């Protein structure tokens, strides 16, 4: 089972590395969105420090949503997905593999990039550390939840916008605890309780969403 999982992760990552523009568009989108806020709000560092956690998290939310459409699309077009539906391995396992690969390609770069953006907002070292942790625990949940939306809208004409409408409300808990963790650190309360909530949500998502995603894939690819 582990072999299948590793195999599918390696396959997806290899394919993605051949088309590097996909990775970079997500990342650049994230950087641009986060950099726009100071231009809209003004350069006062006190204000920026206050809004930084929310801005970075909303940016990460939008960026990871932007990448969702590609999650199953290529496999759907060339017929690989149909083979996966027929494969003897459980579909939810394949889904987990694809989501992990997707997170490595689109989520992990965001986590690595975020501290640099945090510096733009004059966040303290402590806050930056918590931000990395919160993103590390939070963005996989975004990919897992987003996979449901991607599977439901697979191959639809208005897929991209529709995914946003379906998935963004479900992202709210992650946004609240993720941005809350950083905010609690800057205000001196400590973000550990937020981080454990993020971890709990990640576990729940890991247990529940693969089944919903595979059910959705079966419906969409039928």
């Amino acid at each position: 089972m582990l072999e299948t999982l590793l195999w599918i992760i390696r396959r997806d990552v290899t394919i993605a590395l051949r088309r590097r523009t996909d990775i970079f568009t997500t990342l650049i989108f994230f950087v641009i969105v986060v950099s726009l806020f100071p231009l809209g709000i003004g350069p006062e560092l006190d204000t920026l420090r206050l809004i930084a956690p929310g801005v970075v998290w909303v940016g990460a939310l939008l960026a990871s949503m932007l990448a969702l459409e590609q999650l199953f699309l290529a496999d759907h077009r060339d017929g690989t997905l149909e083979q996966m539906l027929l494969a003897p391995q459980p579909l939810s396992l394949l889904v987990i593999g694809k989501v992990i690969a997707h997170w490595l390609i689109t989520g992990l770069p965001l986590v690595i990039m975020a501290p640099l953006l945090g510096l733009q907002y004059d966040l303290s070292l402590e806050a930056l550390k918590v931000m990395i942790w919160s993103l590390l625990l939070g963005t996989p949940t975004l990919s897992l939840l987003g996979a449901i939306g991607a599977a439901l809208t697979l191959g639809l004409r208005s897929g991209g916008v529709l995914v946003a409408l379906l998935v963004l409300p479900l992202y709210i808990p992650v946004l609240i605890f993720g941005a809350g963790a950083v905010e609690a650190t800057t205000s001196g309360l400590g973000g550990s309780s937020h981080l454990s909530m993020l971890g709990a949500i990640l576990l729940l998502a890991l247990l529940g969403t693969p089944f919903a995603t595979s059910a959705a894939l079966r419906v969409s690819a039928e």
Partner: protein
Amino acid sequence: MQNRLINWFKYSSPATFYPVAGRLAPIFWVIAIALIGYGLYLSFFVAPTDYKQGEGYRIIFIHVPASWMSMFIYLVMAGWSAIGLVFNTRLSFMMAQALAPTGAMFAFISLWTGSFWGKPMWGTWWVWDARITSELILLFLYLGYMALVGAIDDRRRADRAGSILLLVGVVNIPIIYFSVKWWNTLHQGATVKMNGQTSMDETMLWTMLIMALGFWAYSIAVAMVRVRSIMLEREHDAQWVRDMIGEQA
């Protein structure tokens, strides 16, 4: 037991349910009009003026029932979806779709009246209170469901995809509500007590209950009418539809 099951499934076929829905709708219209009429009478002529909130508190006689209905309808839709996915009954999916616009409407009414209540009480049209925020998210969930079902041309896929989304939503609602509450208590500024000081007297409670029952009957009546339209739309090629409608509508 076996017999009973077969009996129920008989009603799940559109051809048999269409006339049943047609007979049920007028009954629920009458109940709805009677209850809402009585509820309006109670809310303006019987319920006394509140000593603290003056006449403005009468808004909650529609606000609270509308909020209840918006949540209740989402649960009912999820229930229909589960039944549809398990027993593969087309009618269940149609019922879920027939309820969605009404549920969204009640969510909207809840937000609208909440804001009209908030302006004189708190001095602002919108407060990021946990309950209001959750209601807004509920409205988004309704809109997402309707957008998804509307975007898929293949009916079978639309039914199932919508149902999965509803079930995912229902599992998520407690988590969303909990997180919004947590977020709200951390940002003390926006915390609002709704009925904290107002002791809910019995007439008020009764008025709200009667209004809620009226809204409930209204939702059933509307769902029956809408499900009939959905059936006709989907089965316009079926023989029973053609025979029933004939050549003059």
